[in-house]
């Protein structure tokens, strides 16, 4: 096998929304620095927005809302558990991000007076800004990456971050086509590998029929953990209301400003707000189990022109194959509701709060290691939050690398990691990764899907621990299969984190995301804190409480109950 040795000042792992912005901002801050984006796919069409996006959900536009109002809304939506200073950054810098994207050719919807045409989807306040022509977002970002002379290495998947004397010195991985072992020395590293979208098994049974881009297998969660960084709010799962079977967004954020709404089988509303929160998911779960299910996104009461406009947006952006899915079932928004289901679980701070612990500078708890985008715990951060946290990581890393030198990797570490990565290639007749992954993710469904019960989760945890041995049975016949095998390692780590964090927090919070049958009530006295985890001295996973950072925006959580049920 060939070995590639690379060196850079700032290594960006993952070239999606956050990663492309991190690279661009780092080069803007210091054009002489060497910045390298490492991407396991191709940055032209990779990450959560591979096929563009139909709008931004957290736009704080002067004259419409303030960063303080935004922080307040997210504080209430996330039941008070957050670092307000990090969330504030999304409100503070989002407008500048939008303006810069616009200067690069991204189009946002404006009203007839030329003002941003914001829509209300959140419980209070207008933060959703449509971008009906957002399909080429990723191509535009790729062009800017090239223009800023950021180096890009496609089709290399990172497997571990290298740490020496308590700080980051680079990362290792392999070329998923040629199989080369790749060692990259870097003065600072940002992990922006997206959600763990391949945690639960979709009801269809198709491993890649996920809401998130299935390349996002929790790589960064696992790599941050093994680098010694803290992770937080992992028990606050991502669970989404999605088109049944298709398992993609319906999408109420696009359609509800036009008058669509989520209804039960009788056609009646049961929630008064379509914004995705744990509380909204709990109401959906209750409705599905009430005898009034199934639930559907209802548009058939709208006029034909309105529906055509919704179709134009939904069938060009984000998940354009929705059109052929509906067609294949001879269903039409004019005559049929879109049948919705509750998704399998995932980890994603872009939608909920589960991620790597970061402060307002996108720093993790390991010096030189940053995290951005869906995998960094800034609750409900969505795409604007990914751009902002990518930006913060790029700018702050450029300051950090001043005066830092490259450090030689530890040869013993490299040998051990090489042996771990390539082990499946020595067993070409080993168990295929598809079967190993299927069973692991079925266990996730069986034992972790809320509502959560303690004995179930204990059985799940034991199964995930035993799964270390199962991983050793996997066989791969080429570098492509090897990539999938190593992703199963990431998924196993995330499953163990999800079980341990859920067992640790002995209360219920965030609606369905952490609904424990044995502790059905919220308990602020004992649990108004983060449940953090990290790799302990003995190599075992450690859980501990971390106090919520002092608020910078006053919110009276006693009075502000997040209730979306129609009474």
């Amino acid at each position, binding site marked *: 096998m060939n070995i590639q040795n690379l060196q850079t000042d700032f290594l960006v792992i993952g070239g999606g929304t956050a990663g492309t912005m991190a690279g661009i901002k780092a080069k803007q801050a210091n054009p002489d620095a060497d910045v390298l984006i490492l991407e396991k*796919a*191709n940055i*032209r*069409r*990779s*990450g959560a927005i*591979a*096929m563009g996006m139909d709008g931004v959900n957290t736009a704080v536009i002067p004259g419409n809302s303030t960063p303080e109002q935004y922080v307040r809304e997210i504080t209430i939506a996330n039941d008070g558990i957050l670092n307000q200073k990090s969330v504030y950054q999304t409100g503070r810098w989002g407008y500048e991000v939008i303006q810069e994207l616009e200067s690069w050719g991204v189009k946002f919807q404006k009203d007839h007076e030329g003002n941003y045409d914001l829509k209300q989807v959140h419980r209070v306040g207008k933060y959703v800004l449509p971008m009906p022509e957002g399909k080429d977002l990723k191509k535009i970002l790729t062009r800017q990456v090239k223009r800023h002379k950021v180096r890009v290495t496609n*089709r290399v998947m990172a497997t571990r971050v290298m740490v020496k004397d308590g700080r980051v010195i680079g990362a290792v991985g392999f070329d*998923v*086509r040629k199989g080369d072992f790749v060692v990259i020395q870097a003065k600072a590293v940002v992990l922006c590998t997206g959600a763990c979208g391949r945690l639960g098994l979709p009801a*269809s*049974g*198709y*491993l*890649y*029929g*996920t809401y998130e*881009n*299935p*390349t996002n297998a929790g790589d960064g969660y696992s790599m941050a953990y093994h680098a010694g960084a803290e992770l937080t709010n992992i028990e606050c799962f991502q669970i989404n209301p999605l088109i049944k*079977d*298709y*398992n993609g967004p319906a999408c109420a954020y696009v359609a509800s400003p036009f008058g669509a709404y989520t209804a039960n089988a009788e056609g009646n509303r049961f929630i008064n707000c379509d914004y995705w929160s744990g509380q909204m998911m709990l109401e959906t779960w209750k409705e599905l189990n009430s005898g009034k299910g199934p639930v559907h996104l209802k548009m058939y009461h709208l006029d034909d022109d309105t529906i055509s406009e919704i179709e134009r947006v939904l069938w060009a952006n984000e*998940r*354009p*194959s929705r059109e*052929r*899915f509906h067609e*294949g079932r001879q269903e039409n928004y004019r005559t049929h509701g879109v049948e919705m289901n509750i998704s399998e679980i995932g980890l994603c701070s872009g939608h909920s709060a589960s991620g790597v612990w970061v402060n307002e500078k996108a720093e993790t708890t390991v010096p030189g290691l940053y995290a951005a985008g869906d995998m960094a715990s800034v609750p409900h951060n969505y795409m604007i939050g990914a751009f902002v946290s990518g930006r913060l990581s790029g700018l702050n890393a450029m300051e950090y690398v001043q005066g830092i030198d490259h450090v030689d990797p530890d040869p013993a570490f490299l040998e051990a990691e090489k042996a771990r990565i390539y082990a499946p290639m020595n*067993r070409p*007749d*080993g*168990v*295929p990764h598809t079967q190993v992954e299927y069973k692991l993710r079925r266990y996730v469904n069986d034992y972790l899907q809320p509502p959560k019960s303690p004995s179930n989760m204990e059985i799940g945890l034991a199964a995930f621990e035993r799964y270390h041995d199962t991983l050793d*049975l996997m*066989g791969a016949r080429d570098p*492509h*299969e090897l*990539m*999938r095998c190593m992703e199963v390692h990431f998924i196993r780590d995330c499953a163990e984190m999800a079980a341990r964090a859920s067992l640790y927090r002995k209360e219920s919070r965030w609606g369905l995301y952490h609904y424990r049958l044995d502790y059905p009530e919220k308990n602020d006295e004992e649990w108004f804190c983060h449940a953090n985890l990290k790799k302990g001295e003995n190599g075992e996973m450690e859980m501990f409480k971390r106090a919520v950072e002092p608020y910078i925006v006053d919110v009276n959580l006693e009075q502000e109950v997040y209730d979306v049920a129609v009474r």
Partner: protein
Amino acid sequence: MALTTQRVDVPVIVDESKCLEKCTACIEVCPLDVLVKNPETGKAYMKYDECWFCLPCEKECPTNAITVQIPFLLR
């Protein structure tokens, strides 16, 4: 380990009469990296059944040789 090969219906269909032998557009953009060239014919085909039905392969094909179906289990 004893292994067998299972047949599956794959979502990405390539019209070989339209696929250009020197073109790799679909292969380069696939996030899951599931498309490869048949070394004998030079035509692209779906080698691994790992599809997100996201459509870049279809949209970026210069000759419209590709059709992406919703995977059978979801269809």
